[in-house]
């Protein structure tokens, strides 16, 4: 190795000079660590010629070079100061300064070699940056300007450092720093960066091409060397540890030695300079030499937590192989627990440290610190995160998904264990985790998972073991003291039907779970029912649980789940042909135009609200993994199609006063936009299709409307597509007929029903039924002439004065209504014996509230943003509005005191609703209530 530095030193005659001048600025001559066998190449390379003419040159050369270097050195000092006070603004300035100075220096010394001083500054900055970005709290405390500077600094440094990547690495390998503590930092961070490289394989790849291109003059073997060096060092450290361990013979290893060593390693945790991987391996080694099962357990718990530590940040995920090992460790933990039923896991009490000394033969209960559920949840979270991070279109994602059975088996075992020790509260939490893995799977996917689990888990396991043994060849010298047989199942068991599994888990949760667990399980249950086309069941569950009222108070991820369940319910309603219910479920989701955000399936851009990076990061962390997504395009087509089916006849019926009774505001807006267009091209998006269909449907051309809608690609994602399309066609026909009658009834005196059936290709009874309903509901002023089969229209044209008079009376009664309500509020309710009209008035009020503010109808859909401290004034009113909306109609609307059902969700107060006002059931459009809202 030395020869390379020699050649380098020789080829660049100027090389010695910059480093030379560098020396005075450093206080002490760096002393090589004895363990460091890669010799300090700078020093080795420089000293020979340096030793004799050191003094002379220094005095003689007071050139521009010197000046530049002095400047640079002072800048470095400034950087150091800024680092000390955590001042990123000035850091940014000095960084710019040093870059400029670098140019000058380079010009002056006329060489390619970057001065060491500069590299050192870079390293220092990089380290500090890494340290700062890992320290979340400190980052939060930063002032805005500082934080801004910090972020831009991060960008700059990253870009800048890329150029000098190899030099930095070289420098890190042979730290030539003046301060001891500095070296420490560097050491720890070196490991940190190692970890990073392992976590992000692409990051590992990145440096190579760059260094290849740039290091041509430095020699081609460099890149490989760069990567190897830290590993070498690490291995050496491990060797040392092992050596230490093996100094004793296996028989000499006692509980105490293991315990001491354990504590020693434990204390090093989280400290600077502790390699995270290394710690895991140290622990793993210790498990082999643990003397008692309890001790082994204790250490295993530490292994698992150390494995969790491997990934420091919140954003990244745990390396997959570590995750797998972690799962294996958990399984071993369970093995031990099952084997020794007297060992109890507990995290509430401070434990006697000698507890684990009690051996195999000890009969009494042994307590070991640990929390299985927390570990399991963490493992699940890491699995989730990894799926969030991995690009869903790669093979890697699929591979990762295949690991799911591994987790399922773990969860299953943990649950079984917890149930066997009677901790049902915890087991319900685990059950929830399992539910959350199943609920979104349609039957086919579930089948596939089941098959996969049966096939591969064995293979996976074997692979795992072999990999592990490969990794620890040298540690496997002695057999573990405590041999643990594999007691718990390594293969998940799935019942035939996902529904049965869900039922079992969910009823367990309803019985023992806490509030949040129950709510989430209920939502998953609803989702799953909806997935299986059991609309009525899902709807009943939703209404019985009163989740709609309470979901505002829940955490965001539950709200997302709620939104997901609602959209699935909407899709389900559509599939079974309940158009208005489908629209009711989906309309609020679409009212804000933030569907992606509400479903956590991507970040929607909002023009008016710039998100802070913090918000964005939070949002990103909430995202659903790709395989759980609900097809947004399908969702949109279902929403718009059902809106079309409801709105087109509605528009036709109320041509004259367009302001009243808007069913779907969103749809109306889109229609307006599309009508404004001068030229309409062939439809491309879902929206275009529906709008095109609407245009022809308004004219009563049902066939064309259906063709346009059916030409949408997304229908292929619908289960039993043909029946759904058939249903859709039928609905379109019906609405076309209605629209036609609304629009053209005034042009007819009588109309034969045969003609209608011909027009709309409907069966006679069906047409008869539709028309009859319109007559009964007084939508159509007509009656049948039975012998001839004709509709006789009775058109009463109101004169203008008459129409106005009607409007006036309407307004008068509203006025009286509001007076009564106002006085009732003041004088206390119950005093007024109001006539039955009152109810209608309430309907009106609710409708007004729903229609009046498109914003307020968003109330049901949990607005994720208002927990995010948005400042938009419009938004602030939003939440309040939504709330008041609830009070107006909500109390009547939902308080159906139902709540039994199969093992029901019982915490809701079922006794309410006795005197509840009849809810706004006349108003189908705005709220989900109307699903069942017949009865308050």
């Amino acid at each position: 190795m030395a020869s390379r530095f020699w050649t380098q030193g020789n080829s660049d005659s100027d090389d010695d000079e910059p480093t030379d001048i560098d020396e005075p600025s450093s206080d002490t001559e760096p002393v090589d660590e004895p363990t460091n066998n890669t010799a300090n190449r700078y020093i080795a390379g420089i000293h020979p010629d340096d030793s004799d003419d050191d003094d002379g040159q220094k005095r003689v050369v007071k050139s521009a070079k010197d000046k530049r270097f002095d400047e640079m050195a002072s800048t470095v000092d400034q950087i150091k100061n800024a680092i000390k006070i955590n001042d990123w603004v000035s850091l940014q300035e000095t960084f710019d300064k040093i870059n400029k100075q670098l140019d000058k220096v380079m010009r002056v010394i006329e060489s390619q070699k970057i001065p060491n001083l500069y590299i050192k500054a870079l390293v220092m900055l990089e380290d500090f940056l890494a340290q700062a970005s890992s320290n979340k709290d400190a980052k939060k405390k930063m002032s805005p300007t500082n934080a801004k500077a910090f972020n831009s600094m991060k960008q700059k440094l990253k870009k800048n450092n890329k150029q000098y990547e190899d030099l930095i690495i070289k420098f890190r390998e042979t730290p030539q720093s003046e301060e001891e503590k500095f070296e420490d930092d560097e050491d720890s961070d070196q490991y940190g960066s190692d970890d990073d490289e392992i976590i992000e394989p692409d990051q590992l790849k990145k440096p190579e091409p760059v260094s290849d291109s740039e290091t041509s003059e430095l020699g081609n073997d460099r890149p490989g060397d760069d990567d190897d060096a830290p590993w070498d060092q690490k291995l050496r450290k491990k060797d040392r540890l092992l050596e230490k361990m093996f100094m004793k013979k296996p028989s000499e290893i006692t509980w105490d030695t293991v315990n001491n060593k354990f504590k020693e390693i434990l204390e090093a945790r989280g400290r600077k300079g502790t390699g995270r991987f290394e710690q895991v391996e140290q622990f793993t080694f210790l498990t082999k030499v643990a003397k008692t099962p309890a001790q082994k357990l204790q250490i295993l718990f530490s292994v698992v937590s150390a494995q969790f530590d491997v990934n420091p940040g919140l954003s990244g995920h745990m390396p997959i192989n570590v995750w797998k090992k972690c799962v294996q460790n958990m399984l071993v933990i369970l093995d031990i627990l099952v084997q020794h039923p007297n060992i109890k896991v507990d995290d509430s009490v401070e434990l006697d440290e000698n507890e684990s000394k009690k051996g195999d033969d000890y009969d009494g209960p042994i307590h070991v610190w640990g929390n299985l559920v927390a570990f399991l949840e963490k493992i699940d979270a890491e699995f989730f995160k990894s799926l969030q991070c991995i690009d869903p279109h790669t093979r890697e994602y699929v591979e990762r998904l295949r690991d799911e059975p591994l987790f399922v088996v773990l969860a299953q075992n943990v649950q079984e264990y917890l149930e066997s020790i009677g901790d049902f509260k915890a087991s319900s939490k685990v059950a929830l985790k399992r539910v959350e893995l199943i609920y979104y799977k349609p039957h086919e996917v579930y089948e596939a998972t089941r098959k996969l689990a049966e096939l591969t888990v064995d293979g996976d396991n074997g692979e795992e073991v072999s990999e592990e043994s490969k990794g620890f060849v040298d540690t496997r010298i002695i057999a573990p003291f405590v041999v643990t047989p594999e007691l718990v199942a390594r293969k998940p068991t799935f019942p035939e039907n996902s529904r049965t599994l869900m039922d079992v888990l969910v009823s367990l949760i309803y019985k023992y779970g806490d509030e949040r667990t129950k709510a989430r399980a209920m939502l998953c249950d609803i989702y799953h029912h909806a997935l299986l086309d059991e609309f009525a069941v899902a709807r009943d569950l939703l209404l019985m649980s009163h989740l709609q009222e309470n979901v505002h108070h829940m955490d965001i991820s539950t709200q997302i789940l709620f939104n997901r369940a609602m959209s699935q319910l909407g899709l389900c309603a559509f599939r079974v042909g309940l158009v208005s219910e489908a629209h009711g479920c989906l309309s609020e989701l679409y009212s804000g135009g933030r569907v992606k955000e509400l479903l956590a399936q991507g970040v929607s851009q909002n023009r008016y609200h710039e998100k802070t990076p913090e918000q964005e990061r939070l949002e990103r962390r909430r995202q659903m993994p790709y395989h759980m997504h609900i097809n947004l395009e399908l969702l949109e087509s279902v929403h718009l199609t059902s809106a079309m089916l409801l709105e087109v006849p509605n528009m036709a019926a109320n041509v004259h006063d367009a302001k009243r009774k808007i069913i779907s505001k969103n749809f109306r807006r889109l229609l307006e936009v599309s009508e404004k267009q001068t030229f309409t091209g062939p439809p491309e998006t879902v929206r275009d299709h529906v709008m095109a269909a609407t245009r022809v449907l308004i004219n009563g051309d049902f066939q064309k409307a259906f063709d346009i809608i059916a030409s949408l690609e997304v229908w292929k994602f619908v289960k039993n597509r043909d029946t759904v399309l058939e249903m859709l066609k039928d609905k379109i026909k019906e609405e076309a007929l209605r629209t036609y009658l609304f629009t053209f009834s005034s042009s007819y005196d009588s109309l034969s029903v045969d003609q209608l059936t011909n027009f709309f290709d409907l069966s006679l009874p069906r047409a008869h039924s539709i028309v009859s309903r319109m007559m009964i509901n007084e939508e159509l002023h007509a009656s049948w002439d039975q012998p001839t089969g004709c509709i006789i229209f009775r058109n009463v044209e109101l004169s203008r004065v008459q129409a106005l008079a009607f409007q006036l009376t309407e307004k008068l009664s509203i006025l009286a209504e509001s007076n009564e309500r106002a006085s009732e509020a003041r004088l206390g309710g119950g005093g007024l014996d109001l006539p039955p009209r009152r109810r209608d008035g309430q309907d009106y009020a609710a409708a007004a509230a729903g229609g009046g503010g498109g914003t307020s109808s968003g109330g049901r859909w949990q607005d994720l943003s208002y927990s995010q401290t948005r400042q938009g004034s419009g938004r602030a009113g939003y939440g309040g509005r939504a709330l008041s909306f609830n009070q107006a109609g909500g109390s009547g609307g939902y308080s159906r005191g139902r709540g039994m059902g199969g093992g029901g969700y019982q915490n809701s107060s079922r006794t309410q609703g006795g005197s509840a006002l009849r809810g706004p059931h006349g108003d189908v459009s705005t709220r989900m209530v109307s699903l069942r809202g017949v009865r308050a």
Partner: protein
Amino acid sequence: MAEYDLTPRIAPNLDRHLVFPLLEFLQERQLYNDNHILKAKIDLLNNTNMVDYAMDIHKTLYQTEDVPQDMIERRADVVARLKSLEDAAAPLVAFLQNASAVQELKADKHYNLQLLNDKYQIGPAQIEALYQYGKFQFECGNYSGAADYLYQYRALCTNSERSLSALWGKLAAEVLMQNWDIALEELNRLKEMIDSKNFSSPMNQVHSRIWLMHWSLFIFFNHDNGRTLIIDLFNQDKYLNAIQTGAPHLLRYLATAFIVNKRKRPQFKDFLKVIQQEQHSFKDPITEFLACVYVNYDFDGAQKKMRECEEVILNDPFIGKRVEESNFSTVPLRDEFIENARLFIFETYCRIHERIDMGVLAEKLNLNYEEAERWIVNLIRGSKLDAKIDSQTGTVIMEHNHPNVYEQLIEHTKALNSRTYKLVTQILEHAQAPAAH
């Protein structure tokens, strides 16, 4: 027709003893194999103390004179227990039979207890024995005795839980003795208790309500005023909720009551919505009939359903009750139902038609031409229908009178006056009240 038989769904919500009348009815209708019913009866009796009865059934079922040993043993057992309970409750029973002693009791429970304790040495143990004795009597099939004892017990008992079960027992006894008026009183009492009591879980409350509704079927379809009362009870929000959650089959009875009862129209519309909602959980010809007439306007379907309804009614133990008149046996409810259902169809049909062919109408109403004509003439004469018959073409012509615009306007504003007046008085009263203070 067994598919529409609700007995299997109703029975779990009834007391064992209350199931007997249902089984008797089924036996009479011959819907099921006789032997099956007898077996079911024995099963039913196995957990009661009516061993003699069980023996009789056993004999008819297996055509033997032998009775299994365990039945005989059981009989001895029952007799022995009866004896011991009788002894335990004897002092109290003696006291209660003494009319002059009972006079001493007052309305105050504590006073009574004190009195009994001091004067007759009757303590809580005896009172408890009375309850057990009453219960045992009930199980033996001596309903009148049971009713008496339980009534007395309720007057003395302090435990609300026990009092509730005594009430259930009393209700069952009265139902079985067919004392409908008293049973109705007990029912109302029980209902109040259920509504006011704090149940440990809402689930229990819902269950109690469901039970109560099932039991009440006996009363409502036998009591003169029952058809109105059943709507009053079942259509309450709380009870309707219970029906929807736990016992959708009860909708049949509510639907029947609605059809038979013309006065309850306002609630009827809401009820129709309930029926639509519960379509997925309960459907039978009666509810389907309503759906046909009021939701789908499918009159042919309605007419078909009407025929099915007739069958259903005849086979239902509650609504298909027979009344024997000399040699006839009629089912009064069926006739009423059919009449009303016909009216329902006709009414709706007329609302949307201007001219109807009599022949078609007759067919839709399940009548022949002559009958239909007579029926319509009667309606017109009773001024229930504003129409005329055109006998030349054989059509009925409706005379729709649409209120003219002015009338409508007046109609709209009519109420405003009184409402405003009311409002003002209300405010004035309120304003004066604080001033008076």
